[in-house]
């Protein structure tokens, strides 16, 4: 009689424990780098989307000095190239599957740009790990961008007016007034995105990154045991994701001292 789980199978895969250990390290590193790249990219994209740089502004003013209401020149005068690029980036990245993006980065971009055959910690293949980080970082950057933009736009305009009227520059206003409040508001959404990144990193096994999923595949191939390694992977992923969301919830509580009486 077939059983869903055979305890004996766990002892069979136990000798491959080192693969899972290595996989865990790779997944953690992959997620950390992705989060850092994604967050920096997102911040830049969000600022680009909200920028107000209009190189053709002068075309929108007619010869009496009034703003044009309609027509081609009025549209051109409102054109903001930075915002356009950022918006296009976000929409394209959000509207295509991650696996397609990973394959394009790995086979396309890094098929042309050759990476050194270097092994991190003696076993992580840099030529596979790096494209994985780049692809995931670019993808999460698009999602985080929208979260950050929403956070910044949720702050009352009066805050900026007060800061600027005290003499703070635009950058100081962003750094000391807007971002601290915005980050607090979007922390739950960011926590969600971080957990998604940890889980989504599993997809990089398709380009040969030796993460937890690739350990599952290796064990499966060597022992023909399927369910048990998957359950081990499940447990590891849960132990990564659950504390992450708890940790961020802790920071959220710590930052909320301005909203209680």
């Amino acid at each position, binding site marked *: 009689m077939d059983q869903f789980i055979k305890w004996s199978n766990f002892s069979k895969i136990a000798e491959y424990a080192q693969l899972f250990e290595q996989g865990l390290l790779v997944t953690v590193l992959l997620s950390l780098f992705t989060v850092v790249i994604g967050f920096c990219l997102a911040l830049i994209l969000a600022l680009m989307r909200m920028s107000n740089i209009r190189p053709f502004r002068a075309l929108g003013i007619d010869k009496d*000095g*009034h*703003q*044009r*209401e309609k027509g081609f020149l009025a549209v051109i005068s409102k054109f903001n190239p930075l915002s356009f690029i950022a918006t296009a980036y976000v929409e394209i990245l959000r509207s295509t599957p991650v696996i397609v993006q990973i394959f394009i980065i790995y086979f396309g971009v890094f098929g042309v740009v050759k990476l050194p055959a270097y092994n991190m910690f003696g076993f992580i293949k840099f030529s596979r790990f790096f494209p994985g980080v780049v692809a995931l970082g670019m993808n999460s950057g698009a999602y985080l961008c929208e979260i950050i933009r929403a956070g910044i736009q949720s702050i*009352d305009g*009066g*805050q900026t*007016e*007060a*800061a*600027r*009227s*005290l*003499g*703070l*520059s635009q950058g*100081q206003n962003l750094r*000391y*007034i807007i971002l*601290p*409040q915005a980050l*607090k508001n979007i922390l739950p959404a960011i926590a969600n995105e971080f957990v998604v990144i940890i889980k989504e990193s599993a997809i990089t096994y398709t380009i040969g990154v030796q993460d937890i999923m690739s350990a599952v595949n290796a064990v499966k191939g060597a022992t023909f045991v399927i369910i048990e390694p998957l359950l081990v992977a499940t447990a590891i992923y849960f132990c990564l994701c659950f504390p992450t969301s708890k940790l961020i919830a802790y920071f959220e509580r710590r*930052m909320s*001292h*301005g*909203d*209680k*009486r």
Partner: protein
Amino acid sequence: METRDNLIEVKDLKKYYHGGAIKALDGVSTDIHPGDVCVVIGPSGSGKSTFLRSLNLLEEPTGGAIIFEGTDITKKKYKDENGEIVRLDIDKLRQKMGMVFQHFNLFPHMTILENMTLAPMKVKGMSKEAAEQKALELLDRVGLKDRANAYPIQLSGGQKQRVAIVRALAMEPNVMLFDEPTSALDPEMVGEVLDVMKKLAEEGMTMVVVTHEMGFAREVGNRVLFMADGMLIEEGTPEDIFDHPKSARLQDFLSKVL
């Protein structure tokens, strides 16, 4: 006659929206002298707030000029005393003009003390100790020294507005702009804020106040501007405006509010 120095000279100030379809300000000219307490009154939508917010360029005027301490601040570039063309440093300018808002706009993630020391430290480069000492002195003047480590949400509306006033004063401005400072307050808290403003006026601070408090305008103001439809209809001493209104618009307005 240019014997009296003007702190702010406003010339034919215009602010249009939607390409001139809406005229929030339609040619306002006036002078503000050092030590003036200039009260701006008028029906809602008359352009009072737009006028005030234009003075420190929170609104960018469509036309006209604002000359603050000898420099036309509506121009992006100007000639300095050596005849060199320099860019207008808007942040430098705004330090000299304190602003108080209807909705206080305290920074909710900072304590009262942090609210007050941020700009002196980051903009003026004051040391933390000096900024805090000054902040506590100012808080003491408005009777809120014991709330220095509270967060804005723990304060009443009147207390918040008093903090907002001293936060602006911490930058040692040459003029204070008040945008309906008591309009968002519960009636019993209006007095405490007006008292602070009155004290400030007595100390000789130049003030431009947009308000609906006619009692304050009459008692503390030395000049009253009446605005309607984006235009300055009448200006004069409180006696001129309240006791001998000339225009029909002002007479009509006063009959409704007094």
